[in-house]
């Protein structure tokens, strides 16, 4: 066992060393050529239309074909505030008290069919995203509530006029799904992009075998000079984790861009040493334990508070991180964000205290007062291993320590959502997984269903909405942070509308010859492969 552990430790050291060695990779001169083979950990996406879909499978398959107006900085993707122009020429300064943003669009950009891309294409794309015509669905409509209208006064200018000034706008604009489509095609057939690809990104579409693979070749007319470095890419759909691990091991693929559990990382590092590089990051995804307040006794805040108090976040997170894709204790806001609560702020809220025995004693007292001692209930979970089942099993064990008897009911995705919508569950393992770190919009998950349709807690709370709106519209960063604390404290401590679990941890293992790519806090970001190159 000792030898095994030593081997593992040595392997991990080598991988970390490889990662460190990879850090100045950007300083190396990128080599041209080669085809990157990577895996998409999913089966076929429903469609190829980024505007319509939410799944990462669509994004991992199609992001290299498209341009966006702005994007997170590919050289600094872990930042939640560093945005750069993709199709625009420079990041604009807002005017009109923060309610107008004017973007100048690059000249000479061409779609892959050779036709020019103009501000009219950008404006029409965003008009469809913000306010889709009848019969057209936009999965991101709800994130753009602040936008009043999008105009293009000329072929080089796009103007966004907002209903109210908010710092949530720029991150929302960098949505990686917001591919710029061709105006003529959108107007003629908005469903065209579901089955076809025509972008202006670093790679041109080559072929697509449903559920098998999608391929792209270098776009010689790409507007970022010198990029892309690759001749092409081959993205293979591989839903099963063992296949993906074996494929990286045998170099049938260089990586996958979603994330692997610690066990897979350890296996690959042990086997391949410095031939693989490990990049890790906090992940803008978190599981929430949501009590259904329409069901007794979960309508009683004392019971909900007891559920939160029983869970030892600080001891659970490091233990779980060894076996599951979770890592960091946090509140409603992604831990890496400037708006996130500090540890000191967290410990003031129910379920985040450092004295677990004291917390559990209080939980037992609250249950007794509420007449819910020895409460039995069912925890509804989704049939996904990482990290859902790990989280649920852990929570059930923690709850057993205050005398609760909880069983887990695991359902496939369809029936799981049906259970959430119909409100037939008692407590559910939900999740909040967003692409860009945009806390002002991300935390909307806890707003009542009348405001946020994907909330299943079964409560209405005007005060919570009021706190949210005040925070959303606050222009001053310091005051906005204070208002975020007030909102968070009210949701997690006063009302205990939901119970946090450790935030996810993203682990990417890739072949060390793959250079230029940097991990971000989301598996939706930094996927256009323009700056990726192969050191072979």
């Amino acid at each position: 066992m000792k030898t095994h552990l030593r081997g593992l430790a040595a392997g991990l050291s080598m991988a970390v060393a490889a990662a460190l060695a990879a850090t100045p990779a950007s300083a190396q001169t990128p080599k041209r050529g080669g085809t990157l083979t990577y895996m998409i950990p999913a089966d076929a996406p429903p469609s190829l239309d980024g505007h319509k879909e939410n799944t990462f499978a669509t994004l991992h398959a199609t992001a290299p074909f498209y341009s966006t107006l702005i994007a997170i900085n590919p050289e600094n993707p872990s930042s939640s505030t560093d945005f750069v122009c993709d199709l625009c020429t420079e990041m604009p300064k807002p005017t009109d008290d923060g309610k107008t943003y004017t973007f100048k669009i690059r000249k000479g950009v061409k779609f892959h069919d050779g036709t020019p891309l103009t501000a009219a294409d950008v404006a029409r794309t965003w008009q469809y995203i913000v306010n889709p015509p009848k019969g057209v669905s936009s999965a991101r409509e709800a994130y753009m509530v602040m936008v009043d209208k999008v105009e293009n006064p000329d072929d080089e200018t796009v103007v966004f006029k907002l209903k109210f000034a908010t710092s949530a706008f720029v991150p929302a604009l960098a949505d990686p799904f917001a591919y710029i489509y061709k105006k003529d095609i959108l107007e003629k057939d908005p469903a065209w992009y579901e089955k076809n690809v025509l972008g202006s990104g670093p790679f041109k579409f080559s072929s697509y075998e449903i559920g098998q693979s999608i391929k792209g070749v270098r776009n010689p007319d790409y507007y970022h000079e010198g990029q892309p470095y690759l001749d092409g890419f081959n993205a293979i759909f591989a839903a099963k984790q063992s296949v993906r691990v074996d494929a990286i091991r045998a170099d049938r693929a260089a990586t996958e861009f979603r994330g692997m559990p610690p066990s897979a990382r350890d296996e690959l590092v042990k086997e391949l040493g410095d031939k693989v590089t490990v990049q890790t990051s906090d992940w803008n995804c978190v599981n929430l334990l949501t009590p259904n307040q329409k069901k007794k006794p979960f309508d009683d805040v004392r019971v909900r508070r007891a559920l939160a108090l029983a869970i030892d976040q600080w001891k659970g997170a490091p233990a779980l991180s060894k076996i599951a894709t979770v890592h960091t204790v946090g509140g409603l806001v992604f831990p890496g964000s400037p708006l996130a609560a500090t540890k000191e702020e967290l410990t003031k809220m129910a379920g985040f205290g450092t004295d677990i025995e004291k917390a559990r004693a209080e939980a037992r007292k609250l249950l007794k007062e509420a007449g819910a001692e020895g409460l039995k209930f069912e925890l509804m979970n989704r049939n996904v291993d990482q990290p859902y089942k790990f989280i649920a099993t852990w929570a059930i064990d923690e709850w057993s320590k205050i005398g609760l008897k909880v069983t887990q009911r695991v359902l496939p995705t369809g029936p799981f959502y049906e259970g959430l919508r119909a409100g037939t569950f008692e407590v559910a393992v939900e999740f909040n997984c967003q692409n860009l770190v945009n806390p002002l919009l991300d935390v909307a998950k806890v707003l009542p269903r009348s405001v946020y349709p994907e909330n299943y807690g079964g409560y209405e709370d005007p005060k919570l909405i009021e706190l949210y709106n005040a925070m959303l519209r606050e222009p001053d960063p310091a005051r906005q942070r204070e208002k975020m604390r007030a909102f968070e404290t009210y949701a997690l401590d006063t009302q205990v509308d939901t119970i946090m679990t450790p935030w996810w941890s993203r682990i990417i293992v890739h072949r060390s010859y793959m250079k230029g790519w940097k991990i971000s806090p989301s598996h939706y970001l930094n996927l256009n492969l323009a700056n990726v190159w192969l050191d072979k």
Partner: protein
Amino acid sequence: MHRYILNRLLLSIPTLIGAAALVFLLMRLIPGDICMVRLGGSGGTVSASALAACHAQIGLERSLPLQFLDFIGGFAIGDFGTSMWSGKPVVQEIASRLPVSLEIALLATIVAVAIAIPLGTISALKQNSWLDHVVRTVAIAGIATPSFWLGILSILIVLDVSHYLLGSPWMPSIDYVPLWDDPWGNLSIVILPAITIGYRYSAVTMRMTRSAMLEVLREDYIRTARAKGLVEQLIINRHALKNAMLPVVTLIGMEFAFLIGGLVVTEQVFNLNGIGRLFVLAVQNQDYTLTQALVMLTVAVFVVTNLVVDVLYAWLDPRIRFG
């Protein structure tokens, strides 16, 4: 014979209609909504208007009787509609996966028959000998070992052995290439799944061959043939084996039909984009049109396979006549 085939084909129509009605109703009994899975599967917001647009687009806003009539009407003229999940024609979805499943099923059948018939026959001829015990042990192990486990094991063995021999791990490509594009590449991809599936398949067939042979070898006509002084090999090949093949052929037919849509886990283990994987996805995604078409395809494969088996009966056993 022609009349018999026509009768069998006509009789399959109520079977197909019954299966269609059953799958149509069962799919709609599963709680859930394909649009919610599609639009909100990653936890994002799904607005009421987007949900309604999705329902309208895939035809879920229509009444159930209308949906059923549409399905049956389309089926009658060979139009299975479009997949509710991908929006692509169902026929196209199935056609892109069928060659993979067919190739694996055919190869696995060849592997199974090549192992099972000789070993099953030898086992029967050498009943209770050490050879019989070895064959029976191999057969029982094959039945008891799940194909997917054997698949995972075979990949790991290939990886470890290649690492030992070549210095770096090797495994076949996980990106399927058609036989006519790259025969060697294709063979390297399909050989492991064919062997792992073929082994279990052969184990079942081997036991059936052995027991059928044992029964036939005790028949009067075999004793008569021996009394006539016929060469033993001729007795085995012409009189015993041919007659013992009746239940074996039935079994091979049923197993082959099962392999077309039943290799769910094995396809996942080898990252093969076949019908089994499509089947699971269709049910999981609540893609009604695709699931219905796949069930109908499976039923059709079973019907046709049964028909072929019945026709083979007449060739194997002259006492069986149709008409």
